[in-house]
């Protein structure tokens, strides 16, 4: 348990360490790594989609496979790439920003990670077990009920597992932020990334249960013969759409708000200027979250909900432009009058502003119901949401990776390669998606396996495909950069950018397992900056050096997850053969047994002793 020496550990010891860790930083990195893996997977699926659509009536892949491809692309990207990477940042960075030594529930944190990972594995195993889900990431009933094979079942259980993990993460972050802020870190001194983590967690808390319910209904219909969506027995498929979008729209803000938080950290640092309109930024974040729950039917304008509902939801949707606008203008005002350095992290942030603004504006256009009757389910919508998701969330993730890489891994990413990657990706991105607005309006619906020859759609689609490959090259350069940096990169100091403002820059890169030897005393917004400006090189401690209490690692989260994983297979295959009920009950027994074990054995953690701490150098 000594932390004084970095003793050489064997491979198995390291593996065991990662399998049992409850350290928020390690889990954060694991989230990011797994998310990156799924991003490449989803990206390859995107490339397959674009190859298929490169020319009219192409037969690169079959119709059924195409539907599997788009479903898996959408599901993987949203649930297993974008969200986990953001949760990874929340895990790794947020506790550092509020001056905490860990999250409130380290055990739950690890459970959440494993549930997410096995959910993703579950979903992707469908490729090898008779076919992937093929009803779109939105899984509209009754198509999803009638979908043959077990693909949809993997979708349902995979999302159910990872959704449970996400919910745990959300609650964990909320409690952490409420109870574990360092002395002096009042709510209105929290960095914006912490704020957006907080608000996104609230969204998770209220949005995911709707998905959980929807998935249960789908699962009961598919696996246990209930009749929620069976019209012959009085079922109603519109219920699924409501449940999905009650979750689905807040979900897009779960994605974008943390990205907003990341930009709100980066832009001030590289403008050397405090964030303009901090209070209104916080307020706007809450307003977006609040309004986010009242707009979901804008995905259902064509369902036939009636003019009153359509009009109300149209107004709600457009209203979101206002708080988002506040944010955009505050960022611009932060740049204004600053002293701007443009490096890779900043490039991604600057690329974000115009790209996201375009995406947001097409969002408002979609919100105008009458026009949406034309846009709906066409490539215009595809263009809209890739503009906000890629131009907002993915840019945010990449900006955050460049910005926090030194903090996470102790090395600064290579600048030259960072810029090359940016330009390839940025140009490819606009090439791919800008043209799609027009394709949509020219009569190309989305989820089309082929488009016909002679309908004026050929050139646009070709351009789009070329763009996608440029994005692929950009991503590859980034991956090479990561490898290169890991091998050759220079070591980073505590504050490699020189202008760090928040607490994470006041400690070593990467931080010690206990983060702060002494909890820092926070004297205002941007605490580290304040200390630097007043001539102190570092934070004033709020307490003397004391023993630090640490939680014990545990293998139970992994075992519990494996239990649920096995049980999921039981659920899926019991329709074919009753023997699978053994897997169902066996898996459940493992999961519940490890839960019981957890609650029966008191875990008091351990202490890092004062004497050892004093030997440490910062």
């Amino acid at each position: 348990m000594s932390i004084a020496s970095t003793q050489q550990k064997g491979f198995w010891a390291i593996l065991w360490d990662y399998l049992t860790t409850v350290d928020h930083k390690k889990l954060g990195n694991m989230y990011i790594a797994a998310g990156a893996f799924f991003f490449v997977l989803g990206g390859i699926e995107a490339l397959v989609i674009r190859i298929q659509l490169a020319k009219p009536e192409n037969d690169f892949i079959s119709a059924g496979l195409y539907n599997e491809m788009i479903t898996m692309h959408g599901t993987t990207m949203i649930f297993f790439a974008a969200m986990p990477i953001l949760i990874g940042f929340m895990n790794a960075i947020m506790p550092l920003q509020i001056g905490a030594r860990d999250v409130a529930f380290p055990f739950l944190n690890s459970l959440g990670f494993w549930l997410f990972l096995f959910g993703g594995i579950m979903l992707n195993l469908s490729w090898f077990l008779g076919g992937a889900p093929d009803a779109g990431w939105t899984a509209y009933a009754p198509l999803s009920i009638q979908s043959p094979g077990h693909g949809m079942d993997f979708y349902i259980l995979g999302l159910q597992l990872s959704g449970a993990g996400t919910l745990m993460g959300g609650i964990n972050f909320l409690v952490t932020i409420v109870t574990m802020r360092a002395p002096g870190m009042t709510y209105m001194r929290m960095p914006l990334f912490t704020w957006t983590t907080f608000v996104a967690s609230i969204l998770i808390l209220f949005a995911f249960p709707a998905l959980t319910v929807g998935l249960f209904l789908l699962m009961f219909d598919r696996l246990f013969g209930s009749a929620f969506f069976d019209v012959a027995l009085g079922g109603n498929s519109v219920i699924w759409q409501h449940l999905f979008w009650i979750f689905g729209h807040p979900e897009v803000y779960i994605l974008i708000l943390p990205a907003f938080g990341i930009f709100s950290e980066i832009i001030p640092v590289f403008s050397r200027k405090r964030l303009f309109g901090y209070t209104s930024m916080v307020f706007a974040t809450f307003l977006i979250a609040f309004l986010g729950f009242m707009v979901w039917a804008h995905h259902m304008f064509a369902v036939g909900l009636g003019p009153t509902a359509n009009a109300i939801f149209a107004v709600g949707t457009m209203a979101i432009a206002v708080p988002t606008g506040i944010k955009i203008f505050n960022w611009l005002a932060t740049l204004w009058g600053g002293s701007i350095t443009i490096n890779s992290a900043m490039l991604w942030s600057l690329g974000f502003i115009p790209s996201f603004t375009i995406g947001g504006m097409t969002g408002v256009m979609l919100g105008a119901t009458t026009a949406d009757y034309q846009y709906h389910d066409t490539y215009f919508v595809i263009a809209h949401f890739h503009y906000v998701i890629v131009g907002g969330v993915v840019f945010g993730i990449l900006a955050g990776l460049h910005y926090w890489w030194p903090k996470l891994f102790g090395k600064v990413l290579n600048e030259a390669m960072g810029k090359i990657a940016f330009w390839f990706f940025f140009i490819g991105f606009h090439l791919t998606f800008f043209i799609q607005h027009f394709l949509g309006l020219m009569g190309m619906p989305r989820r089309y396996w082929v488009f016909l020859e002679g309908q004026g759609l050929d050139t646009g689609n070709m351009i789009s495909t070329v763009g996608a490959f440029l994005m692929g090259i950009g991503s590859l350069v980034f991956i090479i950069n990561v490898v290169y940096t890991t091998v050759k990169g220079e070591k980073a100091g505590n504050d490699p950018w020189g202008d760090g403002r928040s607490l994470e820059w006041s400690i070593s890169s990467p931080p010690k397992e206990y983060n702060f030897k002494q909890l820092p005393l926070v004297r205002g917004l941007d605490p580290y900056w304040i200390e630097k400006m007043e001539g102190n090189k570092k934070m004033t401690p709020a307490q003397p050096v004391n023993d630090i209490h640490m939680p014990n690692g545990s293998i139970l989260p992994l075992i519990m997850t494996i239990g649920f994983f096995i049980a999921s297979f039981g659920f899926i295959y019991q329709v074919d053969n009753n023997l699978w009920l053994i897997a169902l009950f066996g898996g459940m027994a493992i999961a519940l047994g490890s839960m019981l074990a957890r609650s029966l054995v008191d875990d008091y953690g351990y202490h890092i002793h004062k004497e050892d701490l004093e030997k440490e150098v910062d």
Partner: protein
Amino acid sequence: MNRWMGKIKALILLGFVSLVLAACGKENLTALDPKGYGAEVSMDIMILSIIIMIAVFVIVMLVYTVAIIRFRRKKGQENYIPKQVEGNHKLEIVWTAIPIVLVIILAVPTIFTVFDLADDADASESISIDVTGNQYWWHFNYSNEEIQTSQDMYIPVNEKVYLNIDSADVIHSFWVPTISGKMDANPENTNTMYIEAYEEGVYWGKCAELCGPSHSLMDFKIVVVSQEEYDQWVEDMKSVDPEAEPETASAQEGKDLFEANSCIGCHAIGSSPSAVGPNLTNFANRTTLAGVEDLTYENLVDWLMNPEALKPGNKMTGNYPELSEDEASSIAEYLLGLDHSEINPESAGNE
């Protein structure tokens, strides 16, 4: 970097211009050249919104560009610390208020048009057609006229037509971009919307809600003809005799095969309500085969022998005995004789 930025801007602009030059896509498919009431109303809102958006975007980009250029850290400024501005209430109020105003400008006409397009006051005295989406074809039932047909819908020009849309299986969505926006075809209810076409012509319709493997092949057409032609068509369709003798012997053979192989069990000819498969009354007058292919003899024979090759996952595959090439040819000949109306897509002028 600025140099780069300029190049990219130029590139994007170039792309944009070339697009505008390439017109707005294919006539009678694009939503950008509306020839019907719904599409026109949508277009108006689109134009209003795009004007607002361009204005907003220009402002954002102006501030953005100036900020990046003017406030770039220059040589010798390495230790310069700019003023740490907390905020500015006046500015913040301005950029809250202006978007609110813009949003209201967009919201008000949106609300009015939403109610306008949902108005069904004239439903009882207008032509009304029951539209049913099926995997992967469309059925049209002119309930007042007792006419059944599939794939090609005939309507008179400049006339409000009410569509009662539902689905026989999964959710589909009825979309004819040039005439009107979409309406979903749900299995559990009937949605009503009206369309009105301003010009004669054949308009492409597409299914816009994922409905299975052949979702992208579920095209249909609206054939807009003059009022007289429409009346004529109704007349012709009503007087079709499903039992009429085909002209040639091989067509007669085809008819027998059609009946013997229980094709007739799914495909009605005439006004029979049976609608497991498309109604074939005026099959030979169709614009396309199966919605997407040229209606030629060869294509039809291929389709009859192996529909799966054209439309994966369709409901016809495997539901009838395998056909030899000869048998398929006879049936094709029979089907291509089903041109019971003088009114066909050519009457609509285009194509």
